[in-house]
């Protein structure tokens, strides 16, 4: 699909042509799934986000500025749908337990890990996933966009509808919590392995 063709499909979709919208769904589903998976960290939630994002996009097509890039617009919808889903899950979780989700401070990662199990990267990855799971939905979203998606703080702010300062502090808080949660892993890694080279 070239740019002119894509514009024509979009114009038809905006007028309620469901075949045109179907072409957009087919074209963008895999990209949407990738982002949704990174944002939510699990397959089932990602599938829910994919469906909800396209439904939301369909309802909001009238608000899409035809000069804007459809991919960018959809990206924003997917990111926000993911945040909404994580919030809803957290609320259900809180209701079920009658207390908030565990915070970084009381995560099992703060225990001293068994060095042998640590050697397995699966264990590291499990602990990282656990630490990510303990972030607030907003922190997790901002962190995912920065760390996995390589988005700048400004872009994160625009994507999530936050100010730059809120976006920045969400990333900072996420990193702070991860540092705390992964501290035991890190000190072991530092003892056992050569110091990690910094990324830049």
């Amino acid at each position, binding site marked *: 699909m070239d740019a002119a063709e894509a514009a024509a499909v979009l114009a038809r979709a905006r007028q309620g042509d469901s075949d045109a919208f179907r072409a957009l769904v087919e074209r963008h589903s895999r990209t949407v799934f990738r982002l949704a998976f990174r944002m939510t960290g699990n*397959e089932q939630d990602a599938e829910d986000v994919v469906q909800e994002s396209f439904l939301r996009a369909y309802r909001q097509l009238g608000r899409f500025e035809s000069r804007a890039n459809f991919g960018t617009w959809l990206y924003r919808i997917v990111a926000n749908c993911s945040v909404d889903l994580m919030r809803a899950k957290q609320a259900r979780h809180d209701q079920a337990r009658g207390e908030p989700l565990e915070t970084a401070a009381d995560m099992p990662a703060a225990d001293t890990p068994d060095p042998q199990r640590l050697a397995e990267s699966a264990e590291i990855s499990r602990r990282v996933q656990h630490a990510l799971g303990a972030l607030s939905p907003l922190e997790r979203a901002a962190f995912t966009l920065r760390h996995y998606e390589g988005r700048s703080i400004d872009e994160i702010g625009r994507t999530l509808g936050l100010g730059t300062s809120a976006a920045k502090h969400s990333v900072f808080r996420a990193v702070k919590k991860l540092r705390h949660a992964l501290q035991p892993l890190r000190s072991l890694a530092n003892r056992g392995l050569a110091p990690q080279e910094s990324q830049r």
Partner: protein
Amino acid sequence: MSHYGEGDLILYYYGEGRRRHDIERHLDACPACAATYRDISSTLAMVDVPAVPERGDQYGLEVWQRIRHRLPEPQQDVWSKHSAGPGRAAWTELATWWRRLVERTFRADRLAILAAAATIAIVAFVAGRFWSTPSKPAATITATQAPDGGSLPGLRQRILIGSVADHLDRSERMLTDIMNASVPGDISAEQRWAEDLLTTSRLYRQDAVDIGERSVANVLDDLERSLIEIVHSPSQVTAADLDAMRRRIDAAALLFKVRVMSNELQEREGTRSAGDASPRTSTRKTS
């Protein structure tokens, strides 16, 4: 020698932020900052990009099959349903949504008092939406003031409707965040968010007043009161702080009002887009 904060070093790690050259030199000279930076970078190095499960070529089609029956009718004119008929279904749906929200947030023993206060707020608000006519459908205003749809008042209103709808969506998410915040906790990110929203809200409210969208201005005014309260509360909230904040939000039925107004504006915008789309379709058919 003054040191760099964790935030500066995080931005540096990601290749962002100013004074990068200064930071680089400082890290070479300062063992304390270098240690913090090593700690940050080794933490972040542990967080690998996850492998995304494969989705085949047919995936797009599968997604389509799953959602096609759930697509709403195109360009539903819910606005005229609200203003012309009783629109009970839409209100009932909203009332149910709101009740669930309150029930989820508050325990049963406190529900009665809250529900009473909020019911008064809702009744007043709903009555206002039905019996006052400040928000004429956009099409009426365009027809009387701007036959070409492009004159300044029409254009201004159109921009405002879209922007305020987005603004209300964002505000709703922020408020929901506060309603769901865990205690004791740090709400500083939400406070910064609220601060941004507050600045925007004031601008939109002034615009709404200028072009006679009084009901929009009223909802924005209510919203601002809660935003101010959030901005000025302590960042480290106790259960009591948060509870007081939630009670006030609920007693004013703020989430309900924001949701209703956001829906209304989106529908007015949809009506407008449908109106815009039809002449283009007919032009294409005749050419």
